């Protein structure tokens, strides 16, 4: 049970203490691991570095989903042990003995009392798991009453092949500002999402914060979550949506509320001063046709097919998290733990020069950008702070 408590909304700092605790019992853990491998894995699933784990919740919704899973899981473990134990017992006890293969055992045809008994047993189990299930369902759509008075923000999520558009709403319900692929939120705040799709069905999921909800073309869906700790949470589209489905990823960055307000203020602003003739990057951005698909607020770039790039330089990832902005060879997990950007911008240049190679089926075509041009363009984009 000790381990289950660890799984509840722990902060990153606190989590290190948890790990220390675990090393002390590591011998026992190893024994358990060998004896009951799958079970042991689930127990440890929450305290190792598993950025997309559904069993390492950092928000209320993920927490209640995780609690429900564990409730059913333990009931299932009991049934598993009973059934498989019986099976093994029967196989050992009633195996035939040499020379007695043709003996006839007692011919029992049935036993009404027993059969009624093992009909009622699953009925009870089913009732035991159905009640908490139904209680939890409403909370996957809207926050419970207990959170009705807590601060909230609303974000419209629009799925595209293969990236996420985030439209932040102000208190009047109008669009405040638009960003893409990286959702910033204040910690301990209810984040209400309305989900839409621009093309096919996508599914928004950031497992440490909340389970999936589909973005269905022609419909509006709702979900919500909150983050109990600051940090970067990773997620990805879960409904198969075409060639680059695997690369339609996202991150949610949870700040304390001061940092969030600062970030939001920047997002509201435009970046008009970049669009000057002396800026070679802007020249390329215009002449290569980038302006046709992308928006840089305050300039003549108002395309809406691709992600809004107004503050691209402040983001950590490229092309819906298909690549990160760290150095080559650094994994996503390492990069999000320690987001040091690559000054050479190698990943960004790779994306600019070979989009379909990075992201199969990408709507952004290869525009024949030379190495020099890529250098200028990448620096231009990275300076869109």
């Amino acid at each position, binding site marked *: 049970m000790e381990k289950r408590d660890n799984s509840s909304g722990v902060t990153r700092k606190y989590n290190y203490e948890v790990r220390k605790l675990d090393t002390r019992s590591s011998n026992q853990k190893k024994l358990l691991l060998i004896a009951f491998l799958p079970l042991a894995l689930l127990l440890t699933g929450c305290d190792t570095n598993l950025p997309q*784990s559904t069993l390492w919740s950092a928000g209320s919704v993920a927490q209640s989903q995780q609690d429900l899973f564990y409730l059913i899981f333990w009931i299932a473990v009991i049934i598993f042990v009973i059934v498989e134990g019986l099976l093994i017992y029967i196989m050992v006890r009633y195996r035939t003995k040499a020379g007695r293969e043709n003996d*006839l055992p007692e011919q*029992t045809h049935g036993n009404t009392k027993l059969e009624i008994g093992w009909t009622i047993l699953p009925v009870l189990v089913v009732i035991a798991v159905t009640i908490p299930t139904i209680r939890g369902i409403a909370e996957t*759509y809207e926050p419970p009453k207990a959170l009705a008075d807590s601060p909230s923000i609303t974000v419209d999520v629009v799925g595209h092949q293969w990236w996420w558009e985030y439209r932040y709403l102000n208190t009047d319900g109008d669009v405040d500002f638009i960003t893409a692929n990286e959702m910033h939120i204040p910690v301990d705040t209810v984040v209400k999402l309305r989900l839409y799709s621009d093309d096919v069905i996508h599914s928004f999921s950031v497992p440490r914060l909340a*389970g999936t909800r589909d973005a269905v073309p022609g419909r509006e869906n709702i979900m919500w979550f909150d983050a109990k700790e600051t940090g970067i949470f990773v997620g990805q589209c879960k409904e198969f949506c075409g060639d680059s489905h695997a690369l339609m990823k996202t991150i949610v960055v949870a700040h304390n509320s001061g940092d969030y307000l600062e970030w939001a203020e920047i997002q509201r602003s435009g970046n008009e001063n970049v669009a000057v003739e002396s800026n070679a990057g802007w020249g390329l951005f215009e002449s290569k046709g980038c302006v046709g698909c992308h928006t840089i607020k305050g300039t003549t770039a108002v395309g809406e097919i691709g992600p809004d790039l107004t503050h691209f330089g402040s983001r950590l990832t490229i092309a819906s998290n298909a690549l990160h902005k760290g150095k080559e060879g650094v994994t996503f997990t390492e990069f999000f733990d320690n987001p040091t950007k690559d000054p050479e911008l190698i990943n960004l240049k790779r994306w600019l020069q070979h989009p379909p190679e990075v992201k199969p089926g990408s709507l952004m075509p290869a525009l024949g950008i030379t190495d020099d041009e890529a250098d200028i363009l990448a620096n231009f984009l990275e300076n869109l702070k």
Partner: protein
Amino acid sequence: MASLSYILRRPTSEYGVWGWLTTVDHKKIGTLYMVTALFFFLIGGIEAIMMRAQLATPDSTVISADLFNQLFTMHALTMIFLAIMPLGVAFFNWLVPLQIGARDVAFPRLNALSYWIYLFGAIILNLGWFTATSPNAGWFAYANLTSIQYSPTNGMDYYVLGLLVLGTSSLIGAMNFVVTIINLRAPGMTLIRMPIFTWMAFITSILLVLAIPVITIGLIELGFDRFFNTLFFSSAAGDVLLWQHLFWVFGHPEVYILILPAMGMVSEIFPTFSRKPLFGFPVVVFSGIAIAFMGWSVWAHHMFATGMGPVPDSVFAATTMAIAIPTGVKVFNWLATIWGGNIRFTTAMMFALGFIALFTIGGLSGMTHAAAPSDLQQTDTYYIVAHIHYVLFGGSIMAIFAGIYYWFPKMYGRLLNERLGKLHFWLVFIGMNITFGPMHYVGLIGMPRRNYMYPTDMGWDFWNMVASGGSIIMAIGVLVFIHNFYRSARKGEISGDDPWDARTLEWSIASPPPHYNFAEIPTVTSGDAFWHQKYPDGDKGVPHPVPSGGEDHDEVHIEMPRPSFYPLITGIGIALLGLTLVTHPIVGVVGIITLLWGSYGWMLEPAE
């Protein structure tokens, strides 16, 4: 008139290629089904191995995104529609007439037609491989990814047309078995005396008759959207979720179509190798019916993530949980059957016991995603992949292997090699747990399914490598089986008529059975009819020999249906019609002419 009856004369060859092409014998058709389905089982396996090669390592580039999407789509379609379903039908064909004491199915030529349409449908579904444009939107083919705009290749056309043709085959076959089971049972075989496998075949056939029309509607609407620009599943004018409802109203009963025959097989095998009758026979039958009935009320549990709202979510969560009740009852009845028995560990029995062990795991993991909130985390992750493989591989395939080891002697008069069989069992049992067991964990730590590659350092690398390793072990196991099957069919130990001291009527006749099955139609006075012939003094009586294979009757007097060309010709006509929309109108014209030729020939064909 003489010339007409010459043109329409029936073929007579019982042997050779023409014998197979024109056969209407349920046993030969069963063999055709089995061999074809095993072939596609291998194809589906190769597709799986290719995917595991790609996923063995992170950031892998063995296979492109597009090819990977075709592979996972075709793997599911192949395994479900071209392997497991027809393997079930192969057993229906072989066993239902033998178990009910009949000489053939009710409509022997329709039975042949059903096989040929299946074969042609399978070919149409696989045509895309020749142009590297197989269906690539998943076997579930969610609209509107399947529209011309988002799936411009021919892939989804093959999907629509292939499945429509295959559906025709299933429908014809299922109707045939419903009629056969209702009408052709031996005198005295009341429904409650009917063998349990035939019962499950009966229930499965009824499910098919009711489920296939639903997917047919969906496929026709999707076909119209793609070929004629209708807007059934357009997000602007139609409804993309309509497809999901149609698909899963079919798709969930389909799961029971895949598992009920398997349950029927193990329900025959446990009693034989425990030397005890099936415990609570009526309860096992009734829970089968209950599963089939309740299977219609759970489809939207595949759609919790679509945001149907709290009320539908709750209803479908509750109905889904409830289906655990009859399933649990069945498991307990099987355990009670072997409890107190005299258990012989033949390969067939080992596979059947493996079925209980693995299917239970699949059922239990099912509970965690019947709980809608919990499912929202698990849906579309490898946890679900693990679940369905424990149900379909650990359940259906293990039981089908059990069935093949058990009934092979009846089909070929020879035993499958037991030593190779046990090797096969252990390789598959261990391999399957190594492959699919870790997927539970990988899914719970967030790895989504249908991803052609995954980044490193997410905690997924090691277990993916393990799973890929396990798939190799399984593949070796299947190769051992194929070798065993091929070798034993020709050189296996002669089995005799009743090698297992079994209980049902198929074991009362020669192995392999004569063309006419029963020289004399038996009269049935109890369940487990053959057992009670052998042990007449009640259950504990002393066995006494029963003349098997019937007495020496003169075969000439038994009137059996003659072979016919027309099922094959009709089937070709239907296949050509199916191909019209992806080829040329002239193909359709030829198809209609062939179809008319086939069906008129069929009608006018003389009985002799």
